[in-house]
């Protein structure tokens, strides 16, 4: 095994072009487990820790450019207002020690259906900025996950940053597991209200071969909210609408039975989490509306 320590992004791209089988290591919280247990013996290990750019973030007009290696701890501490869904999801990852090292770039690299960043990114709306010596491109998050632990990266590409839409409304993240820490999701659900476009977006984790959106549920809810004038009148969402939304989210799952839970439990739990996160976010949207009206 060779240990590559590029000192800059350009050096990293050059090294990856020269050795496409090189395994990048950022926080190491996925890679080192595989090496320690002899599940992986890469020819080249490429340390990304010296590339400062990957640890930086910028808050722009409409989105946050989040460097690939920004640890979850930083996201929780610094980006709660801009990226509430991702900050909540980050807080459910493992433990403080893991959150101090692991980040979204590694989560995307592993592309596990159980990765906690994915539902939050799907719900918020995001693009993954990837680059190789051939050039740079932005992959819409909806096209990023291509199979179980597979993503759209080419062998010579590295993830540089994730551009996540800044929240324009309430967001929630909910995760089912056996305890509150150190738990890989049995299943998870992210939801974001986008009042500016009057849309709702979702993300489902650990209930299909890849992280997915519940598109049929979103379309149904968007139409129902529009029809009932809910965005304007700020009324409580009709139970029948919430129920239908929840059922459609369950239907968007394509889960398996495994040691963490059965397929039918996952489908059920996703429905419950969909209804709850919708209620929580909608209540908070109504509260904010009342506050601005009260102030006016």
């Amino acid at each position, binding site marked *: 095994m060779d240990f590559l320590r590029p000192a800059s992004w350009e050096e990293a791209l050059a090294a990856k072009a020269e050795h496409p089988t090189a395994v990048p290591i950022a926080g190491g919280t996925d890679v*080192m487990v595989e090496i320690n247990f002899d599940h992986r013996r890469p020819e080249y290990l490429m340390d990304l820790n010296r590339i400062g750019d990957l640890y930086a973030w910028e808050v722009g007009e409409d989105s946050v450019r989040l460097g690939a290696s920004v640890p979850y701890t930083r996201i929780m501490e610094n980006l709660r207002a801009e990226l509430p869904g991702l900050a909540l999801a980050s807080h459910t990852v493992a433990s*403080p020690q893991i959150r101090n*090292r692991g980040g979204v770039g590694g989560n995307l690299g592993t592309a596990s259906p159980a990765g906690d960043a994915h539902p939050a990114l799907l719900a918020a709306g995001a693009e993954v900025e990837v680059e190789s010596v051939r050039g740079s491109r932005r992959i819409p998050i909806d096209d990023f996950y291509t199979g179980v632990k597979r993503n759209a990266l080419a062998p010579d590409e590295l993830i540089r940053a994730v551009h996540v839409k800044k929240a324009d409304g309430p967001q929630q993240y909910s995760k089912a597991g056996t305890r509150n820490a*150190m738990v890989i999701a049995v299943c998870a659900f992210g939801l974001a209200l986008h009042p500016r476009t009057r849309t709702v977006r979702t993300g489902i984790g650990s209930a299909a071969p890849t992280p997915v959106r519940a598109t049929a549920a979103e379309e149904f809810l968007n139409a129902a909210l529009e029809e009932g004038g809910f965005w304007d009148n700020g009324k409580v969402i009709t139970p029948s609408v919430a129920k239908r939304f929840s059922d459609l989210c369950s239907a968007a799952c394509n889960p398996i039975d495994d040691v963490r839970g059965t397929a039918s439990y996952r489908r059920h739990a996703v429905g419950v989490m969909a209804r709850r996160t919708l209620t929580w976010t909608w209540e908070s949207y109504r509260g904010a509306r009342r506050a601005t009206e009260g102030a006016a």
Partner: protein
Amino acid sequence: MRVSFTVNGRPQQADDVWEGESLLYVLRERLGLPGSKNACEQGECGSCTVRLDGVPVCSCLVAAGQAEGSEVITVEGLAEYARQRSGDALPGAADGAGPHTGEGAGLAPVQQAFIDAGAVQCGFCTPGLLVAADEMLERNPDPSDADIREALSGNLCRCTGYEKIMDAVRLAAARQAEGA
């Protein structure tokens, strides 16, 4: 490969390090610092917790090469680290006797609190808990019970003595407040 970094304030060098080796392995097997414990090697138990450039991490999940040039604090260096933090000089530190190995360095307040509260059973989880608890007390001198639980949520105690561990951290926090 060769890896050079600072451990408990002293420059260290390890040679013939395998590229896939963890920082934990280097500390224990190459540098003679067995305080950090090896239990799960998968980030689940926190027994291997050290501070890497100030930040608590599982040393079993840091590739040794990633620690190049960094500053590591292990449980062996906790007493000296705590002493420097509180501004007291260590008597006799100049003679080179090993504050970096913990020998003759006395105990950090958090270590004394663990003993006084009876928070140690088999002791396997203790080094990791001490490093994690000490870092929390540095950051958050007046922690709530929820803060303590959160800060220690990555550290498993197989003897399940969590209540005494909570007592110990509360005691350390109270003593720290009195001293301040």
